C-alpha cells in the first residue's frame, strides 16, 4: 500500500516551492543576468551554493537559523505562536533555499539569451523597464521559466537530507515520499518501498521529459492549427 499522505505532502511541498521560486527567483535572475556590478559573482556563488553543499550541512544551518536561539527564530515564534523547525512552513523555507539555484540558473540563462537590442528597442518605444520585462523578456524566456519551475519542483520532490534535518518525520506534515521509502526499507518492507520508489521514478521521468520537450521545442514541427 502506497503512503498517499506522504505523496500529498511531497506534491504540496514541491508545488509551493516551485511557485514561490517563480516569484522570488525572477527578480534574482533578472539582477544576475542584467547587473553590471563588478562583484556580482559573489552573489552568483551564494545562489549556486546549494548545488555543491551536502544537504545535511545546508539543513543544519537552516535549522540553527530558524531555531529558537536565533533572532529570526525567536521573532517567528513570537509572531506565529510556535517555532518554525519541524513544521511544514519550516520545511518549505528550507526547500526554497535548497532549490534556489535550480530555478535561478535556468531563469538567468534564459534572460541572457534575450537579444539586448530587442530590449533597447522596447525602451525607445517608451515602455518602462518593468513593462519590458513582462511584455517582452518573459515571453521570450518561456522555455527557461518552465525549465526552472519544473526542475525546482522535481528537485524538491527528491530531497532527503534537508527534510530530515529541518522537517523531521511527522506524518501528514513533514513526512515526504523519500523519507517514507527510507522508513519502509528500515522496516524491511521492501514491497512497499518498491512501489513508492517506482512511483517517484515515473513521476521524475515524466517531469524531465516535459522539460526536454519544451527546450527542444518538439511541437514546433507539428502543423499549426
Amino acid at each position, binding site marked *: 500500500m502506497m503512503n498517499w499522505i506522504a505523496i500529498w505532502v511531497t506534491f504540496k511541498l514541491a508545488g509551493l516551492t516551485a511557485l514561490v521560486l517563480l516569484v522570488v527567483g525572477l527578480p534574482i535572475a533578472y539582477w544576475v543576468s542584467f547587473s553590471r556590478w563588478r562583484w556580482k559573482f559573489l552573489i552568483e556563488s551564494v545562489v549556486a551554493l546549494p548545488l555543491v553543499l551536502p544537504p545535511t550541512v545546508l539543513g543544519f544551518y537552516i535549522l540553527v537559523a530558524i531555531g529558537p536561539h536565533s533572532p529570526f527564530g525567536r521573532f517567528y515564534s513570537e509572531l506565529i505562536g510556535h517555532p518554525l523547525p519541524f513544521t511544514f512552513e519550516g520545511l518549505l523555507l528550507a526547500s526554497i533555499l535548497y532549490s534556489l539555484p535550480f530555478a535561478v540558473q535556468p531563469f538567468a540563462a534564459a534572460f541572457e539569451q534575450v537579444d539586448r*537590442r530587442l530590449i*533597447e528597442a522596447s525602451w*525607445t518605444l*517608451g515602455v518602462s523597464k518593468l513593462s519590458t520585462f513582462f511584455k517582452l523578456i518573459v515571453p521570450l524566456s518561456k522555455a527557461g521559466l518552465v525549465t526552472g519551475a519544473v526542475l525546482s519542483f522535481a528537485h524538491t520532490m527528491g530531497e532527503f537530507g534537508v527534510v530530515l534535518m529541518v522537517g523531521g518525520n511527522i506524518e501528514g506534515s513533514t513526512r515526504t515520499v523519500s523519507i517514507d521509502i527510507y522508513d519502509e526499507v528500515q522496516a524491511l518492507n521492501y514491497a512497499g518501498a518498491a512501489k513508492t520508489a517506482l512511483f517517484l521514478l515515473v513521476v521524475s521521468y515524466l517531469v524531465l521529459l516535459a522539460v526536454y520537450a519544451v527546450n527542444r521545442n518538439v511541437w514546433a514541427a507539428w502543423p499549426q492549427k
Partner: protein
Amino acid sequence: MAAEIDINIVKTFPSRATIRARIRYPVEASTVLILFGPSGSGKTTILRSIAGLEWPEEGTIQFVSRAWLDTASGIRVAPQDRHIGYMPQDYALFPTHTVAGNIAYGLGQLSSHDRRKRVDEVLDLFQLRGLEVAKPRELSGGQQQRVALARAVAPRPLLLLLDEPLSALDAPTRLHLRDELRNLLKQLALPSIIVTHDWTEALTLGDVMAVISAGNVLQVGTPIEVFSRPQNADVAHVVGVETVVKGRVVGSANGMLRVTVNGITLTAVEAESAGPEVFVCIRAEDVVLERGGTAASSARNHLSGTVTTVTALGALARVKIDCGFPLVALVTRSAVEEFGLGPGLPVVAAIKAGAVHLVSRQGD
C-alpha cells in the same frame, strides 16, 4: 526661435578611439542629418547616445528646447522619456509579436480604440495591409524594414533615428527602398538622423551630413558641399568621391546614358532607377589625365580643361581641373613632375563610362 540639435559628447572605450563629437545644426520639420563614416568610426555610438542607449562620460545633448543629457548638471533623460523613434541596424523586431503587435507595442498609453486607429493608419502608410497577423520571421527583408520603421514612427516621435536602415537588404532591394525611404521621410515631416557608410545613401537621403572618422566629426555641411569641397584630405579620404555635380540625363542608347553637366555631355553606363535629374559622381582615382591631342583610348569621356590647383598628398597629388565643371583627379607625384602639372596647364581628363556614377535626385 531657431530650433536646433546640439550634440557635444565625449565617450572613451578601453580598446577603441575616444569619441569626441560636436555636431550642431538647425533642424526643421523634415531635416535629415546623415552621420557618415567608415565602420568603427563611432557613428553608431553617437546615434545610440542620442537615443539614450549609451551614456557618454561627459557632454550635453540638446534637442530643440529639451536637454537630454548634461553630465555637468546631472541630467540623464532615459530613452523612454525622449520620445524618439529608433531603428537599429537589424531592425530588432519582436519575434513573439505579429506585425500589428509590433506596431502597437509603443502605443500602450492610447485607449484601445485610438490604438487600433493609429495601427491602421500606419499599416496604410507603410503598405503593410494584409500582413497584420504575420510574424516577423515570415517577412522579406524589405517588409521587415517597413515594419521596423512603422513601429518606430507609430508613437509619433519627435525625432527619428535610423542605424544603417538599408544595409541589411540585398542590392536591388536597397536601391528601390532608398528612393522609397526618401519619399517617406519627406512625407512624415519628421526630423531624422541616419547612420550610413554608403555615400549614395548620404547623397540621396541627407539634407545635412556629418563626416565622422576615428570618433571625430571632421566636417558638417550639405552632402554636395562635403563631397565637392572636403575641408581637408581626411574628409576627402573618408568620403572617397570628390566630384559630385548636378546633371541631367538627356538620352540613352545601347545601354549607355548621355548626361549633361553645365552644357558638357558625359557618357555613363545605364544605371537602375536613375531619373532624369541626377548627381554625377566621379572618384578622383578614376580620372586619367592626358596631355592635349591624345591618341585614341577606350575611355568614353574626354574632357578638355585647365588645371586650377595641385595639392601634394604623400606619393599622390590631388589635381583640380576646370572642364566646364570642377573635376578632381588623383595622380602620382611622378606624373605631376613628368607632365609639369601646374595651374593654368591645359589637360584632357579621360573617364571611363563605368566610372561615371549616377545617383538620382529630386528635381530643382
